């Protein structure tokens, strides 16, 4: 763990020597990022991996960044979500497996497609999502669509809708509250 972390910093130093500004910012904020992702994941090993993965993605940044420290945190937060969802899918597949068979061969699972029951569950879930999206308040729906579907930045959204950044944030919070209430109750 410690070794991998040193390795990451050494690589980042090399990159930063090659005049990559973002890599330099990564090095300067490495410990802070690690602390943050320990708080986020509550697991030191997971946090180490996330921070390393953030480093591996530095070269994907395009154009100058207004808020590089925020950018680094956000890449990591997305990675945490990706991993958690992957874990959820794996658990669902495992459950499928144990639901449909009584034997299990080590850690090897065969994906035999979802059972009719979970198909119904998935369909109901999709319907709830569709209903929740369709009943979003208009402003919240717009911001959610512009940001999540069309990938617009907060400043682009604020500019297009003619509202402040704080206003964009409020619409987003409204959208999330509505979705949480309607989908998960």
């Amino acid at each position: 763990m410690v070794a991998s972390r040193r390795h990451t910093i050494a690589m980042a130093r090399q990159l930063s020597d090659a005049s990559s500004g973002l890599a330099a910012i990564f090095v300067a904020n490495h410990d802070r990022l690690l602390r943050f992702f320990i708080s986020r994941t509550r697991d030191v090993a997971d946090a180490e991996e996330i921070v390393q993965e953030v480093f591996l993605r530095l070269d994907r940044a395009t154009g100058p960044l207004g808020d590089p420290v925020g950018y680094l945190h956000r890449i990591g937060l997305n990675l945490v979500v990706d991993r958690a969802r992957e874990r959820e899918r794996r658990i669902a597949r495992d459950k499928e497996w144990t639901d449909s068979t009584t034997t299990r061969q080590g850690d090897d699972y065969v994906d035999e497609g979802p059972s009719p029951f979970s198909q119904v569950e998935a369909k109901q879930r999709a319907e709830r999502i569709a209903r929740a999206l369709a009943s979003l308040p208009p402003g919240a729906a717009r911001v959610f669509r512009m940001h999540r579907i069309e990938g617009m930045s907060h400043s682009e959204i604020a500019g297009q809708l003619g509202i402040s950044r704080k206003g964009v944030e409020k619409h987003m919070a409204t959208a999330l509250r509505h979705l949480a209430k309607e989908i998960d109750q």
Partner: protein
Amino acid sequence: MTGEQQSDIERDAIDWHARVSVGEVDWDAFAQWLDAAPAHQLAYERIALLDAEVADWAKKNGMPELEEVPAPFPFSASRRWWLGGAVAASVFALVVGIPRLTGPSHDDLVTYATTGEQRTIDIARSGKVRLDERSQLALSTDGQVRMDHGAAYFDLRHDENRPIEIQSGTFTVRDIGTRFTVTRNRGRLFVAVEQGFVDVAWQDSSPIHLAAGQTFQGEERTGSGEVGKVAPDTVGSWRDGQLVYDDTPLTQVAADLSRYTDKPVEVEPAIAHLRLSGILLIRNGPDLVDQITAILPVDARRGNDRILLVGRARR
């Protein structure tokens, strides 16, 4: 833990996630909040996962159209329409108070959608409609039309007993025996009249009367809009593979281009005031965008989900 505490935590988690998504974040304060109680981190994880799940669903299936924007329509909202439509109101008189028409009954609606090519649909005994590429509308047997998105050219014989009514989001377009186009894109309506007369109403406002050679463009959310001019013989020129513009707002051009490209074309707010005159040939999508960048001082930034037109000098 009581239910109330739980909902407080959820609200905080949502506020943090909204800030992470589109706001400014004090990362150390966020870490402190996450550390303060195990329930905080769990609540945040739950909302982040839900958000990702819904976003995935919407990317795959599209956002449901916000057809039901005008839930109740209180007086205060009507006043907003007056204010928001200040420009429009100076051009034509508006009267609020006509009961809102209920939308077409959805029982007997048949939906028509195009992808890469146009098609013509007969409207029984009333005429026909030409649907452009990447467009969708629904027809009922009793002359109700629901415009979902894209562009349609209507060629209708007026029949007192069978008036055609086109519902486009919060707008209603009624023909009075005519040829005209209706275009709906990203919460905006564009109407251009080639011949005859058309009425356009927003929610329960009284209609604007458009004659041949007139256009209307309006925003569904606020109802604000403006009336413009067009050469009647260029209305619906996309049917002949051309887009003809004369001092046309770039936003309207982008709405048209979006029908011939695989990604929506959008205009950076800073250059939304630009206007275009000229004829574009509809061949294939990427070509069209290049035709724009050759005419106006703009660049096309091609992203994963869209093509954004930006000012050339700025970046």
